């Protein structure tokens, strides 16, 4: 059995993180050694927090070395817990930080999801201010952005962030790992308030149902008014695209279907180009499958963060294909994406007139909606309602 272990990162280039080394021992109580660039300001509180975390984990004897680069309390606690659980794999206790008191946005199955901002799950420095950039959703990623041997540590820091970070009204999303590892991710994070789970590399309805079942058992009795966990499967392969409708309709929790183009084009054996002709069919297929299943189609990400003009063009094309949003890998992309997916002023004005005519007809008890001399068909009303909803959502 391992008796000592490290977790976290430190060094001149590291911000808002720390490296801790824990060694357990049979006697002698707790020793805490601290190096910190904020020692004069927070040294005492770091020692206090460390002792508290060790006590919650049931550690009574051991030495802890902390090399701190400005980690805030929930990060410090996560790193200590990760080191202790690595050193003592039998440890079943958890050091959950007190949940902070924030107003969480109510989530719904149908909701504005123009942008979802990916944050690497093991880089807590990006968490604190992400919500200030106003994305519709924030994804704490446990999958591709986390190294294989850091999955355990990332889960803990993501869990703590769900309890202690204010995401300023963005939907709280977690991208888990492909199953079966993804089920372990769910165990750690689901009880702490996840609005949407992204299931990567999804190729079958079965994996969606497995995720659904695990969430349902973890949340038994906890879901209620405005609190629910939805799913956004990501198809990233030729098989996934073929199964898109099955995936999108596999569970009532599925709220949206999205596509991962890097993996998809690799699977096709095609190069990913700026024009995106190679994925045009797959994107169309995803839009169609999502609509057929009654969920929102959401596009992939655009990976050149320096080229906002190209991003705008890609996002406009995406909207024209029927997508409702796309992923962002940098906060600067959020606004461009929101603008691109926003209906134009003319679209909004026209939609408002149609909705007003629809309300008017309803008041009269008439099923016939007309605007000027034109009759308005029900699907047009439906689209107008969606446009008005999106336009209203922007004022959030």
């Amino acid at each position, binding site marked *: 059995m391992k008796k000592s272990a490290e977790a976290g990162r430190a060094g001149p280039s590291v911000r808002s993180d720390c490296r801790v080394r824990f060694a357990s021992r049979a006697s002698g109580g707790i020793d805490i050694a601290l190096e910190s660039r904020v*020692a004069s*300001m*927070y040294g005492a*509180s770091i020692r206090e927090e460390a002792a508290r975390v060790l006590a919650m984990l049931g550690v009574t004897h051991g030495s802890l070395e902390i090399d701190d680069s400005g980690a805030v*309390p929930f990060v410090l606690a996560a790193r200590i817990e990760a080191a202790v659980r690595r050193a003592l794999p039998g440890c079943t206790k958890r050091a959950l930080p007190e949940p902070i008191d924030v107003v969480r946005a109510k989530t719904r199955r149908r909701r504005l999801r123009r942008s979802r901002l990916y944050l690497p799950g093991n880089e807590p420095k990006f968490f*604190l201010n992400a919500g*200030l950039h106003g994305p519709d959703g924030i994804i704490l990623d446990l999958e591709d952005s986390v190294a294989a041997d850091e999955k355990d540590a990332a889960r803990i820091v993501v869990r703590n962030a769900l309890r202690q970070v204010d995401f300023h009204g963005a939907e709280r999303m977690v991208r888990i790992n492909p199953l079966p590892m993804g089920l372990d991710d769910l165990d750690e994070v689901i009880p702490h308030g996840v609005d949407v789970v992204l299931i990567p590399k999804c190729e079958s309805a079965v994996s969606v149902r497995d995720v659904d079942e695990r969430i349902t058992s973890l949340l038994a009795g906890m879901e209620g008014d405005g609190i629910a966990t939805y799913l956004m499967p990501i198809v990233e392969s030729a098989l996934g695209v073929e199964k898109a409708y099955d995936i999108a309709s596999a569970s009532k929790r599925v709220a949206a279907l999205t596509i991962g183009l890097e993996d998809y084009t690799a699977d096709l054996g095609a190069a990913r180009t700026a024009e995106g002709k190679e994925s045009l069919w797959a994107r169309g297929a995803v839009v169609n499958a999502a609509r057929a299943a009654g969920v929102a189609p959401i596009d992939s990400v655009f990976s050149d963060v320096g080229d906002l003009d190209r991003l705008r063009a890609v996002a406009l094309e995406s909207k024209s294909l029927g997508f409702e949003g796309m992923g962002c890998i*940098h906060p*600067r992309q959020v606004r461009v994406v929101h603008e691109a997916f926003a209906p134009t002023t003319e679209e909004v004005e026209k939609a408002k007139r149609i909705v007003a005519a629809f309300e008017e007809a309803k008041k009269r008890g008439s099923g016939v909606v007309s605007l000027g001399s034109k009759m308005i068909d029900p699907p047009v009303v439906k689209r107008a309602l969606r446009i008005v909803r999106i336009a209203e959502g922007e004022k959030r």
Partner: protein
Amino acid sequence: MSAGDLVKNAADREVPVTVNGRESVPFMGVGKFRPEGRKAAPPVATCADYPSDGNKLVDDLETALRKCSLRDGMTLSTHHHFRNGDLVANALFDAAARIGVKDLVWFPSASFPCHAEQLKHLESGVIHHIEGSMNGPLGDYCTRGKMKGLGVLRSHGGRYQAVQDGEVHIDIAVIAAPAADPFGNANGVMGDSACGLLGFALADSQYADRVIVVTDNVVPFPCVPWQIQGNHIDFVVEMDRVGDPEKIVSGTTRVTKSPDRLLIAEYVARFVRDAGIMRDGFSFQAGAGGTALAFAIYLKEMMKDAGVRARFIRGGSTKYLVEMLEEGMTDYILDGQTFDLEGVRSMRENPNHVDTSPFTSYNYHGKGNFAGIVDAVVLGATEVGVDFSANVVTHSDGKLLHGIGGWQNCLFSKCTILAIPSFRDRIPVLVDRVTTLVGPGELIDVVITERGIAVNPHRTDLLDALKGSDLPVRPIGEIKEEVESICGGAPAPPVLDDDVVAVIKWVDGTVIDSVRRLAPGSP
């Protein structure tokens, strides 16, 4: 290094009544201190004592210093036009050490990390103390109480005021120049070490007893434009190199890529627009920091959209301001220093890119200064208190880390904006009481962070103007509390001694605060 008796000044800060053997006036409030008497003056010279052919070249710096009768206890000044690429200040004190003098006062217009070499002269006693900004190893040395005299930190305008008022007497000024002729005319726009202008050396050329120009680029008379006039100059020295061009100005100035800083910059630009400051004929000042640059870029787009042009922009200039000048979006750049090669080129070629000095822009003891004419200025800070007062010189751990620069002088703008992150790496920037008071809260109008915009309650006009704007205007205390909840509570104050190691001058020469020695064993 005893500072003697301390008294509480009008800002409720304890300050010494004597500084390095001279009586000093505690801060009395903004605009309250009345200067008396006449300005200082250098000795009257006669051209009969100087070479009639105008050739003042001597062999080297050591020779020039000997000819200036360098002796123990003198005050020697240098300037920071070459920023972190300066080779002259270090060479000056190396030469003084070879001559064998002691207890000199170094009076730089600012010091940079490259001046850490002066530590050896502080330790050997060649330098007694520094009156100027101290950072890095020099700041650490001072804050730990190792310097023999008190550090004195002044703003750029305060430095001019201190020289002009006779508070600091410069025995020998050494002006490093990118170009000079043998008569001593000098400028900053020509040569490998071109830095734009030499405004920080103006007071020294006018008031020092002896003035030496050092250059690596001697041109035949006349060296024009003569930003420094040879009639003030005693000797000219040619050195192989006076500066490291790569560290003097950057080839290209980079805008921040930090999303949080871009957000702050965008809030600042939207504030300037929505508060009605951005209108035809307005003026603003923004430095070369990443956030300030990004602000200028956002503002430019908003000016274009609104069809608005500025009358003038105050530099530190960069290529972004130069573009605005060349695109006709401002009539003038009034420049204090140039930060990149485009700034230098524009200053050399464009008559509407005007060089200024601390006398014209900042000196509080003059018949007006430009600072108060500027409609909006965007500045930074290391700490801001809930009363809007701010610190730019020390870190929250009590260590000196920055100079004041023109910061204090700029506070007299019609709208002073501090653009700051609300915390840095777990260290809150918004605090109950700043560690060191450098700027009184009554002069700071707006604090803009990534978490919201706090308007000083006394600026009801700005608050009214912002009604209906969708900017996140919030009370400063509310933002401070949010930051403390993220950082895990308020930071513990630094553990400091009673001993004073440096004083902070206000723009009128009064003492606004003291810097205390760090307790032994502090990290």
